[in-house]
């Protein structure tokens, strides 16, 4: 939610419930994180610490050994060992799935104190971690292909330039009234060539639309209509992998255009862990039917690429919102005491995709019959308002209700390719312009001093840290950071004459905590109307630094944190002026009558008539039972490692000083760093040996 839009719609009198909540309780702008990105903000929300302590700084993180980007929240690795028989292979063991958000979410800590929680669709909760409660993972959950959402367009159109990514387009041919094609699934785990698993799909023309024939499914789909979720089964030997898809018939004449959502993990037969405990998604799937499980379920890329039109996208968002609301109410019905957190993404996605309609100066501002943003966004806000109204009717005086958003929104008219700028200014060397591949294809790392990856981060190619680093740490790095900062702040957009960058932050000064060294060296904040280009985020260099943003993705929030706050509503009066995302976790501790952990950066907000007794009117502590949850039973306990008393005391002292949430986290991080260092030196030796073998080195 954007505060300005809330206030605008509230003035029209269409948000009566949120207005009532604001007047009887509290309404404030909610200070977001630096950078103001959802993964960072929601990680801070759940841990109560700054990014230096939870280790999430962007959607992407870079691997300093390869300069490639990877998802910042989770890492999936195939099984470490396998047997190969020609084209076939037999994986020995399971793929590893590791969450990369550090520190501890408040629900885990509250669980240790006997308070159970429902955590629904909160970003950066994949893979789900065990705690006392139930969790359904949100942003970060991949589709069955392992991507963050790859939709498919089935078309009989032979010429099409509108869709840039041909992998998403499957061309089909009518034979009479029938077209036979397939749904592509994940790579076959038993084949070494990575050939995908397939499921046959037959399309038949009917008078009213297209008949979809899959195994066990026979359904007519009309134009402009979404199908229900359809289960797709991919067979790999004796095993089956299940996914779910929805279809949308965009057009039938003069050519067929059929959209299929990304193949999402089936909640009833999850191929990946979607929830904690694992059966929670099965329970929800059984109770409410199949539902979207993908982290970024609303297919913004399909709208960006013209596969879906505005109305179809809004329809998809509404369907997903309906599912979320059903999940939320089910959890609400089951909650006796504890915490219920649910994230609804619809407003965020609609603001990203429809801000162009609000902004007449936006290059993608529509001239035609597209639904007006005011209509679309107002409807979305009204829907949220209805939900809040229904909730207000059902919560009692002992319940604390918060409605929050992690950031606000502004227009995104012009994109800035930071890598193109770095290349133009000589910081990034190599034959990079126009390279088709991602991740700096053609870069000469032995001559490059800086690079940008992700939506707001700049990295120094530092010696001893990056694989081919050339900038000495310390003085030289500081000098280079200062040089780049000055240059970026003086950068001007030739088309508007404006400086697009308003702030460049040195992360070593902004963040505190053990993971600061994983952060980008510099973080860029933009003026309203500007943002990093998509190409720059993926490590591509274009010939132009500035470009008009003509995509539907037209609203964004990469400004200074103070300029782009979210919203905070509470049904309890609060007597503080400034509320930050990091304050919410400590406040929840206070609400339950507990002292927040000392490593948390946020401070508890004043909730009740007197500080210290805040929790007493919300929860009767004597009613809380400390019980071992059913999901905690039978869990494998980690192996114990003996640490001498003196070393343990030093470990505890050091981890407190550094701001780690627990001894385990500190020890794990120390071990990871050491392993990384050893592996990296092993890699260097291996490269050296190879170069010697080829005669390049003597």
């Amino acid at each position, binding site marked *: 939610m954007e505060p300005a839009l809330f206030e605008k719609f509230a003035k029209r009198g269409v948000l009566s419930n949120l207005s009532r909540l604001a007047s009887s309780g509290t309404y404030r702008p909610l200070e977001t994180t630096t950078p103001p990105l959802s993964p960072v903000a929601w990680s801070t929300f759940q841990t109560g610490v700054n990014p230096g302590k939870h280790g999430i700084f962007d959607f992407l993180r870079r691997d300093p050994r390869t300069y490639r980007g990877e998802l910042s929240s989770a890492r999936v690795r195939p099984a470490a060992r396998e047997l190969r028989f020609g084209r076939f292979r037999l994986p020995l063991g399971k793929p590893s799935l590791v969450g990369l958000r550090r520190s501890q979410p408040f629900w885990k800590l509250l669980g240790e104190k006997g308070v159970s929680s429902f955590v629904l669709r909160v970003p950066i909760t994949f893979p789900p971690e065990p705690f006392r409660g139930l969790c359904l993972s949100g942003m970060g959950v991949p589709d069955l292909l392992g991507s963050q959402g790859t939709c498919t367009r089935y078309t009989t159109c032979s010429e099409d330039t509108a869709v840039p990514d041909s992998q998403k387009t499957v061309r089909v041919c009518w034979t009479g009234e029938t077209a036979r094609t397939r749904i592509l699934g994940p790579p076959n785990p038993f084949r070494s060539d990575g050939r995908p698993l397939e499921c046959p799909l037959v399309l038949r023309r009917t008078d009213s639309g297209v008949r979809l024939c899959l195994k066990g499914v026979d359904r007519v789909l009309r134009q402009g209509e979404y199908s229900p979720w359809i289960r797709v089964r991919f067979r790999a030997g004796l095993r089956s992998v299940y996914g779910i898809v929805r279809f949308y018939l965009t057009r039938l004449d003069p050519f067929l255009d059929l959209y299929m959502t990304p193949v999402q993990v089936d909640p009833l037969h999850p191929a990946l862990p979607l929830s904690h405990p694992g059966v929670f998604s099965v*329970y929800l799937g059984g109770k409410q039917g199949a539902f979207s499980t993908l982290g970024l379920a609303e297919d913004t890329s399909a709208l960006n690429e013209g596969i879906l039109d505005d109305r179809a996208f809004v329809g998809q968002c509404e369907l997903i919102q309906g599912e979320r609301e059903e999940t939320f109410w089910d959890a609400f019905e089951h909650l*006796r005491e504890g915490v219920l957190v649910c994230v609804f993404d619809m407003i965020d996605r609609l603001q990203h995709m429809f801000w162009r309609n609000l902004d007449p100066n936006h290059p993608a501002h529509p001239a035609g019959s597209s639904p007006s943003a005011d209509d679309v966004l107002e409807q979305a806000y009204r829907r949220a308002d209805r939900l809040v109204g229904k909730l207000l009717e059902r919560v009692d005086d002992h319940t604390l209700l918060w409605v929050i958003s992690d950031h606000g929104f502004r227009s995104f008219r012009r994109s800035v390719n930071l890598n193109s700028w770095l290349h133009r200014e000589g910081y990034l060397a190599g034959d990079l312009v126009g390279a088709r591949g991602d991740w700096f294809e053609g870069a000469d790392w032995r001559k490059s001093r800086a690079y940008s990856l992700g939506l707001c981060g700049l990295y120094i190619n530092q010696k001893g840290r990056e694989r081919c680093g050339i900038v000495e740490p310390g003085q030289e790095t500081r000098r280079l950071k200062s040089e780049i900062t000055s240059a970026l702040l003086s950068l001007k957009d030739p088309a508007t004459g404006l400086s697009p960058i308003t702030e460049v932050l040195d992360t070593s000064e902004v963040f505190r905590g053990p993971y600061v060294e994983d952060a980008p060296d510099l973080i860029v904040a933009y003026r309203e109307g500007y943002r990093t280009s998509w190409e720059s985020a993926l490590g591509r260099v274009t010939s132009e630094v500035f470009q008009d943003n003509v995509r539907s993705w037209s609203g964004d929030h990469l400004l200074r944190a103070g300029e782009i706050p979210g919203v905070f509503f509470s049904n309890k009066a609060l007597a503080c002026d400034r509320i930050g995302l990091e304050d919410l976790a400590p406040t929840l501790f206070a609400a339950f009558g507990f002292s927040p952990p000392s490593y948390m950066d946020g401070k508890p907000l004043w909730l009740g008539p007197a500080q210290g007794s805040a929790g007493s009117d919300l929860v009767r502590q004597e009613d809380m*039972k400390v019980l071992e949850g*059913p999901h905690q039973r039978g869990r494998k306990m980690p192996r114990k490692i003996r640490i001498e008393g003196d070393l343990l005391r030093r470990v505890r002292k050091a981890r407190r000083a550094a701001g780690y949430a627990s001894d385990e986290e500190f020890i794990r991080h120390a071990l990871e760093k050491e392993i990384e260092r050893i592996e990296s030196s092993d890699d260097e030796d291996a490269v050296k040996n190879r170069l010697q073998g080829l005669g390049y080195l003597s």
Partner: protein
Amino acid sequence: MTRTRSRTGSRAWAIFRESRLETLYKLRHLSGTVLAPFLDFLSGFGPLWFSSFLALLSAFVVLIVYRAFAPARDFDRVKNRIKAHLLELRLFQEDPALVARAALGAVRANLVYLRMHAKPLIVLLLPISLILLEGEARLDRRSFLPGEAIIVQSFWPGGLSGFEEFPEIFVPPGLVVESPPLRIPGQKEIDWRLRAKSAGVYRIAVRSPRGEGFVDASVSDELGAGAGSAGRSDRIEAMAGAPLLRIEHPKTFLVLGSLHVPWLWVLVLETLVFVLVLKGRFGAEL
């Protein structure tokens, strides 16, 4: 307290059952006649193969009927709902109120599930009965061995009193009548004991002025040979009061390794397996 059926009620029930069975036997006779060469061919493979064939046939019939009369999607939804309620019991086991609600939900979903079965089951009643009768006829009983005693039962709807000339039994060579007729007036029944001498299928006739009835007895040298369709009565309908004849061939079991299993168990088990294996191909759910 136990409840016993009155004598009149019992008689009425017997007549009802007998008339229903008679209709079914007629239907079976019809289907058996049409399929006789095929069934005879299959029964030549042995009882286990024949029961497998019947199971496959039953599975086809079940799946076709379920596909036509019970939408797979609805079944899937209700089954998932049952599963959800059972998981709910596990997920919220700390809260008795939620557990009770989940249990109630599970019961309700199960009732819906059972109700969904009603329509296809009614439709299945006739074809499955015919298949079971065929199975019973060919697998439930074996032929008599030479030297074994054969009891012929005759039932007289008009009762045993008032015979001008007492019923007489006629047996072909290969069978010998060993005993005089045994009258059981209470059950309107007259029985004879015969002895099998040599292998063959023998038609036995019981005649009286009221009517004439026939029944086949199967005698074989092989222990495992089925009785086929022998043992049931053929009545001459034109004659009112004609007797209903029955011969109880010895019961038989299917041999699975060292186990002797009733054919019905094998048939049900095999049918279940076929249904589960083939339901995906048929697009049926149950």
